[in-house]
């Protein structure tokens, strides 16, 4: 084992565990400030950088839990899920599940779904660009083949469903729409569509039938299957309207070749 490797292993261990810092003292020139204090500067940088990166990706979670809670919570998260990338953006991947587990069975159980929505938004923001499916591609399909159509979701499309009013909570806290209104957690479930509009990313609430329709198409089911599911949710479901809206929103980027395309 090289001495560089060994030194870095010991440095890393001393950063992760401050009780290991004293044992690293022999490697560092004391010069008036002891090793533990010098390492503390680096430990602080590491934790502050991670906290800022997660606050940027999960601003609603930071705001809802409060900064005093959020920073130590991130330290706990780093212990369980060390960063695996030199790109700090990747740090947030396991965070929604960590939030969900932490608040499971508490009055703040909804926070897991808020975090999932925030991460879906982050993923959509940086997803591949693609030209949205043009409406005339569907219009060109012979009527008899339309029910069998399957669609390829745009890389920037995400769907999030929650038993809590997750969109309302997120919007108020993400975009600081702080009108002083209290959000009643028992106001019911919300389903959210995140979609691209040009390079920009948008999000909107969906009616339950509309959401089932989109979720079925997103999962690769045919238009007929998606319609059946949506109709079972709301008998008044208007498939033409829902499909036109989805195409206008750029939810899809292509017809799947095993359909009629």
């Amino acid at each position, binding site marked *: 084992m090289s001495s560089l490797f060994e*030194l870095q292993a010991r440095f890393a261990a001393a950063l992760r565990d401050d009780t290991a810092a004293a044992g690293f003292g022999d490697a*560092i020139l004391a010069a008036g400030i002891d090793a533990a204090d010098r390492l503390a*500067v680096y430990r602080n940088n590491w934790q502050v*950088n991670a906290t800022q990166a997660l606050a940027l990706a999960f601003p609603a979670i930071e705001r809802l839990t409060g900064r005093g809670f959020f920073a130590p919570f991130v330290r706990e998260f780093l212990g369980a899920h060390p960063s695996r990338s*030199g790109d700090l953006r990747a740090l947030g991947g396991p965070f929604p599940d960590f939030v969900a587990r932490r608040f499971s069975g508490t009055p703040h159980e909804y926070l897991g779904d808020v975090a999932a929505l925030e991460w879906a938004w982050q993923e959509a923001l940086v997803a591949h660009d693609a030209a949205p499916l043009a409406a005339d591609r569907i219009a060109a399909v012979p009527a008899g083949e339309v029910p069998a159509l399957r669609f390829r979701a745009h890389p920037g499309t995400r769907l999030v469903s929650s038993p809590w009013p997750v969109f309302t909570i997120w919007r108020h806290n993400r975009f600081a729409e702080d009108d002083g209104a209290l959000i009643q957690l028992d106001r019911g479930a919300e389903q959210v569509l995140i979609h691209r509009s040009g390079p920009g*990313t948008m999000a909107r609430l969906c009616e339950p039938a509309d959401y089932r329709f989109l979720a079925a198409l997103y999962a690769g089911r045919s238009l007929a299957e998606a319609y059946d599911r949506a109709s079972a949710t709301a008998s008044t479901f208007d498939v033409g309207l829902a499909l036109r809206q989805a195409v206008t929103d750029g939810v899809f980027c292509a017809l799947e070749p095993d359909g009629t395309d």
Partner: protein
Amino acid sequence: MAAAALAGIGLRAGHVEELLERKPPIGWLEVHSENYFVAGGALRAQLERVRADYPLSLHGVGLSLGGSDPLDAAHVASLATLVRRCEPLFVSEHLAWGSHDGGHFNDLLPLPYTAEALAHMVNRVDALQESLGRTVLIENISSYLQFNCSSIPEWEFLAELAGRTGCGLLLDVNNVYVNSRNHGFDPLRFIEALPADAIREIHLAGHSTQHVAGQDLLVDTHDAPVCEAVWELFAATTRRFGARHTLVEWDASLPALDVLLGEADRALAIQAAHHVVAV
């Protein structure tokens, strides 16, 4: 190139829209490479707009060049994609490590300055330059400790690295100052020891002072104006090397864009007053 084109600013998210709106007369811009490791979306589109109006350089902070894990091929591939897309003025990284055994600290950790670490950095810089098909610049970092095993002065380590790999150097004058205060050496000695033809870019930034165990420890926080002592060292650097592309960085507690542009103007004025021969 005229000295007037040599001052730039680090472009941060909070300034992008204003900059694109106003298009101030600044010579060039630098972004953190990893911030644009994105497949698509508004960030990518925004970078295209910036690049259409300004020369751009890419400054990496996360590659862990000095780390003993294998060089992260995915990270290098993302950087290579970005380089192809941006055709940057410079591509730079740090004389530092940031990860071990797959775990990243997302920070610039200091290397021991030993023959072994130098040989390692030489291999890594060679590999990076080979992968990107171009010369990269390596930046000196601020550090808050020194290793007992270090046997080569930092400036010699940098000069040797440039000599053996052909890489350029990104001389961060603030980091030289911070280290000179933290580790007790004459910053001019550092500057004097570097090979002039390797210096391609200069960084300036603000730092903060922490009081630890009754002593001052300077920390490279990039959250304040460039201090007077660093401006003086920059003037000495300009006398020594001539005018080089010089960048003002500000990352935390981001001020108004005009404050940053004012710092860049001051860098330009010092270049104009002190450079003898623009190289």
